[in-house]
Structures are given as structure tokens and as C-alpha cells.
């Protein structure tokens, strides 16, 4: 599945291909357009009938759509435990499914289970009770390592650029969307390039870096659609009605 992120400076659409890369890391200072971008991405997941979990203390403030399962990690500890249990079981059952099939990706087996998890304010998970924190971090690490072929997408949002602020291995992010960083080292710690510091990014502008490719600037704007696509969607909507 392709998720629209924004447009590059040549005004071309930029997409995040979740089939090959399941971990998206968005980091930007406060007011950089991070939550707006995240909510745009979540809307696309919801339109594609994904089961969505939002783990954030601000989940009910930032994300207004009722469909996602919103978990506040500090106030709803039981809910968080249920989430860990549910996702772990689901992962092991899906893993067995793929192991028993001849394919290497859950999508090819004909099973259409779609899950996306959004982790907002990464630092806040550090304050969880020790046992819960360990099992939560283990689950997230498992998703990062094995979620790709199980079609589980993970989106992490952070205000700071320190990879050491959390036990989650951010360095493994396959796609990084980075706002303007305050220091050169901050940019280097996330993406091996100081472009996040040297480029004068405005709010709504980000550096898009896919592992193995050259980073480039994107602007968060509505998707550019061809006239044919717009007409086709209209026709489809009318036919459904």
C-alpha cells in the first residue's frame, strides 16, 4: 500500500510504500507540522480499513476520528496491557500462517489483516512501570524487526532528535521524515546526514529519507491528482451510491 506523504520540490507526489518498509519515524520540533502530517497519514490508513492503534497521552486531543483505538499509556495501563497481549498473539498467529504458506509476505497468502500503530511522544513511554515498559519495548522491537512481512505498520513521532531518549531502536527506521533540527549532531544521529540542520526548513517542510536513497525536501500539501483519477473517483462514488 502506498501512503501519500507530500510533494517534493519538483511538485511530484511522494509516497511511503508500506509493503517494503513498515517503520516510519517522524521527528520535528513543536509546531513543525508533525501532528498534521501524522493525522493525514492516519486518515489514509483508515480509508484503507486498517485497524489503528494510537498510543499517546494526547491521542484524544490530536486525533479526532472515532475509529482508531486510542490508548493513553499512563492513564490506561490495563488497556495498554491488553494491547500488548492482543498484538503479540496476533503476530504469532500471523507468523505461523506465513510459515505454513509458500509465500514470504502475509498479503500474498490471501489474508487481509491490516494493522497500523502510532506511537506519539516517544519519551513518555520511558515513565511506564518497569515490567510493562520492558514488554512494551520488546513488542515494538519485534514489530520493527518482523512487522514488515506481517503487514504491521509502525509510525513513531518524536519532538526531540535523540535516539537515546528511548529504548526503541529508532536507527532501524526504514523511512525517516525529519523537520528542522536544532543542531548538526541531531540530524546526523537520525539519518547520517546534516541536511536536517543545513536546510532552512519552514513549518510544513520536511526531509524525507528512505534508507539507501538520497534525502530530499518535501512539503506537506494535498495530493496532486490527475483529472482522470478525480473523475474516476467521482464515478466510483456515484456507482456505489
Amino acid at each position, binding site marked *: 500500500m502506498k501512503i501519500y506523504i507530500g510533494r517534493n520540490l519538483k511538485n511530484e507526489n511522494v509516497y511511503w510504500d508500506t509493503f517494503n518498509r513498515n517503520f516510519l519515524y517522524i521527528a520535528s520540533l513543536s509546531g513543525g507540522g508533525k501532528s498534521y502530517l501524522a493525522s493525514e497519514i492516519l486518515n489514509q490508513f483508515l480509508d484503507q480499513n486498517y485497524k489503528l492503534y494510537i498510543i499517546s497521552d494526547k491521542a484524544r486531543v490530536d486525533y479526532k476520528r472515532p475509529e482508531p483505538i486510542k490508548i493513553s499509556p499512563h492513564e490506561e495501563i490495563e488497556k495498554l496491557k491488553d494491547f500488548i497481549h492482543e498484538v503479540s498473539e496476533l503476530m504469532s498467529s500471523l507468523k505461523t500462517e506465513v510459515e505454513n504458506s509458500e509465500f514470504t509476505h502475509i498479503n500474498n497468502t490471501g489474508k487481509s489483516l491490516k494493522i497500523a500503530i502510532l506511537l506519539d511522544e516517544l519519551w513518555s513511554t520511558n515513565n511506564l512501570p518497569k515490567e510493562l515498559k520492558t514488554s512494551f519495548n520488546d513488542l515494538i522491537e519485534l514489530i520493527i524487526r518482523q512487522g514488515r512481512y506481517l503487514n504491521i505498520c509502525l509510525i513513531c513521532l518524536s519532538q526531540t532528535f535523540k535516539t537515546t531518549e528511548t529504548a526503541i531502536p529508532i536507527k532501524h527506521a526504514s523511512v525517516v521524515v525529519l523537520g528542522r533540527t536544532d543542531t548538526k549532531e541531531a540530524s546526523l544521529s537520525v539519518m547520517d546526514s546534516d541536511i536536517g540542520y543545513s*536546510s532552512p526548513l519552514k513549518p510544513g517542510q520536511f526531509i524525507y529519507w528512505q534508507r539507501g536513497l538520497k534525502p530530499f525536501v518535501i512539503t506537506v500539501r494535498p495530493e496532486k491528482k490527475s483529472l482522470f483519477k478525480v473523475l474516476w473517483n467521482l464515478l466510483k462514488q456515484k456507482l456505489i451510491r
Partner: protein
Amino acid sequence: MKKSNLIQMVSDLIQSHQYFLFGGVVFFFVLLGVYIYLTIQNNKLKQFLFANGYTEVDFKTNEAIYPSIHWKKSTITIKGSTKITSKQILDDREKWEKFFNIQILSVEDERQKTVIFLG
């Protein structure tokens, strides 16, 4: 026709069209000013390109060949140079930003040209 009549005719003509003439003179000076300003700017740009080694030498005439630079609202496009690449511009970032008084957002190499996107 007598000489005095001719002078009289010319002076009448000038008197009846004096505003047009005045406007013409002003317009001429404005054009001249724009021309001088553009020439000075072009010379400065050429000096900048030459001093930083972005020019190439014509092997027949031994003259410097300057790349063409088009400055638009949000981009600067450089064509006709093998020496100016995105890497080169990013290495000399400070010089470019200081000379053009811009902030470079991103530089990309395209086919036959290099585009600087301004911040």
C-alpha cells in the same frame, strides 16, 4: 523657406509637444539606468563565476565560457556547465548564499542542468 521661419516652426513644435519630449527623456534615462544596472550585475556574476573556477575555456578562441544562470522566484537554474554540480554548490554553500543573498533549501542535478531551490 526663410531660416527664421524654420526656427519658428521647430520652436512651436517643441512648445506644443513639450510634455511628450520631457517624458521621452525621462524614459530614456530610466532605460539607461536599467541597462547599466543589469550590466554591472552581469559583470559581478561573471566575476563570481570566474573567481570560483566555474567557467570553462573554449579550446579554439581560448576565451572563458560562462554558464547560463536563470534566477526565478523560488529557483535558480544553471545550464551549460560541467563544473557546477549539486555537490560543488553544497561544498561552496556559504559563497553562493552570500553572493546571491539567498538561503539554499535544496540542490538537485537534473538532465543538463542543476537547480537550486530557495528557502
